[in-house]
C-alpha cells in the first residue's frame, strides 16, 4: 500500500478563515498577513477522490460550501490557474458543485475580489486502490 493510503479518505476538509483557523497549518496567505476575514466555513467534499490505479485521473463532483459572517464579493480559484471558477457578489452563504478531474491533489482557494488575497483554501487529495507497479507484465495492464 502506498503511504498516501494512510491519508484520510472520507470526511470533510473544512478550512475556516484565519480568524477561526489560526491554529491550523493551512490557513493560507491571509493568515500569513494576519488579515481578518468573514469566512466561517469553507468546505470541499469529498476530501479525497479515489481512482482504481495510481497515476490515473480521478473524476468526481466536488461540493463546495461557503459560509460568511458578512456578505462580500469573492471568487473561487483552482491553485495555479488564473481564471476564477466562480465569483459572487454580496453573498453570505453559498453551496455549489464543480467537476473534478485530476491525477493529483487540487487546491481550491477563495479570494477577495478586490484585494485578491486568499482568505480560505481547501484541497482534494487523489488516492487509489491499486498501486502502480514497475513490473512489466503481471499487473501492468489492468
Amino acid at each position, binding site marked *: 500500500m502506498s503511504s498516501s493510503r494512510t491519508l484520510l479518505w472520507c470526511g470533510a476538509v473544512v478550512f475556516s478563515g484565519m480568524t477561526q483557523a489560526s491554529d491550523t497549518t493551512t490557513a493560507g496567505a491571509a493568515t500569513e498577513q494576519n488579515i481578518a476575514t468573514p469566512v466561517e466555513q469553507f468546505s470541499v467534499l469529498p476530501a479525497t477522490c479515489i481512482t*482504481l490505479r495510481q497515476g490515473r485521473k*480521478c*473524476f468526481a463532483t466536488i461540493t463546495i460550501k461557503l459560509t460568511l459572517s458578512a456578505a462580500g464579493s469573492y471568487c473561487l480559484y483552482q491553485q495555479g490557474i488564473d481564471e476564477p471558477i466562480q465569483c459572487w457578489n454580496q453573498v453570505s452563504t453559498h453551496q455549489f458543485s464543480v467537476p473534478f478531474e485530476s491525477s493529483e491533489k487540487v487546491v481550491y482557494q477563495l479570494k477577495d475580489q478586490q484585494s485578491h488575497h486568499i482568505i480560505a483554501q481547501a484541497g482534494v487529495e487523489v488516492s487509489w*486502490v491499486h498501486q502502480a507497479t514497475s513490473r*512489466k*507484465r*503481471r499487473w501492468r*495492464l489492468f
Partner: protein
Amino acid sequence: MHRLIAALLFMSLAGSALADDIESEAPDDDSFQWQVMFEYAVQYDPTVLEVAEHDSFNDFSSGSFYLDVSYNGFFIQTDRHRTSTFSGEFGYQLIERDDWGLDIIAKVYLHGFDPASIERNNDKKHPGFEKITERNFGGGIALRYSYFEENVFFSADLATLDPSGKNEGWLFDLYYSHLTVYQNWDIYSGVGLSYFSQELVDYYAGVTEQESSTHYPVYQSGDGYKIEAQVFGLYPLSQDWAFTAGMTHSLYSSSFSQSPIGLRKNITLYKLGVRYVF
C-alpha cells in the same frame, strides 16, 4: 499431445536463448511481488448440468480469495478480469518481452461433477442419473502465448488434459480482452473461444454402456467448442474496496448440449460484488 507441448516448449526455449543472445536485454524484474484480494459476490451462476438445482443461499453467493505471487519467473495468478471463478493458475515465464510473452502454466480448465451427489441434494429425482459416474475436474499443463497493448490483452493456450486418466485430451483456448476506462470505471469486454478434443468432450458429455439407462442412452460425442462473451466492471469505493459487476454468456456446441446427461447449450452468469484489496 504431450509430445506437441514438449516440442513447442523446446522451440520456445531455444528461441528465447537465441533472442537473449541477440538482444542482450536486461533481465526482467525478478523481485518478489504479491497481491491478495477478497471478493464477496451475489451471483446467478447456473451450472452446466441442467438437473443441478439452485435453491440455497450459498448457490447465489460466493466468497473468493484472489492471490497473485510472482518471484523470479514463477507466478501464481488469478484472472481478475474474467468473471469465471476457477481461473487460478501456476506457471513459469519462458519468454518475457514488452508486448508479448510465453509461459508454461498449470490450470484447471473444466469443472467436474458428481451425479450421485447432485441427485442426493436434488428435490426432484432423475431415475438413472445416479448411474452416471463422477467426472473429474479438467486440470492440465498448457503453453500460453500472451500479447499486451496498453488496453488490450490476448492469450492463446494450448493445453493437454487427462481428467479420466485413460484418454488424453487437449484444448485450445483463445481469449481477447479490451479495457475501457470511463471516468473511475474500468470496463473489460472480452470474447473467448475454446476448442475441446473429442476425448475431452466425450469424457464429460458421453454416456457409456455401463452408465446407460432408459433416460440416459449411450452417447458418444465428437469434438466441441465453447464461445464466451463477457463484460466486467470495477469501480473504486475507497482505498481498500472496489465494487465489481460482471456478466458472462457462454455458448456450448451441440456435442455438449445433445448429451443425454443434460448439458446446457447457453449459460449466462451475472455477478455483483465487493472486493477488498489487502
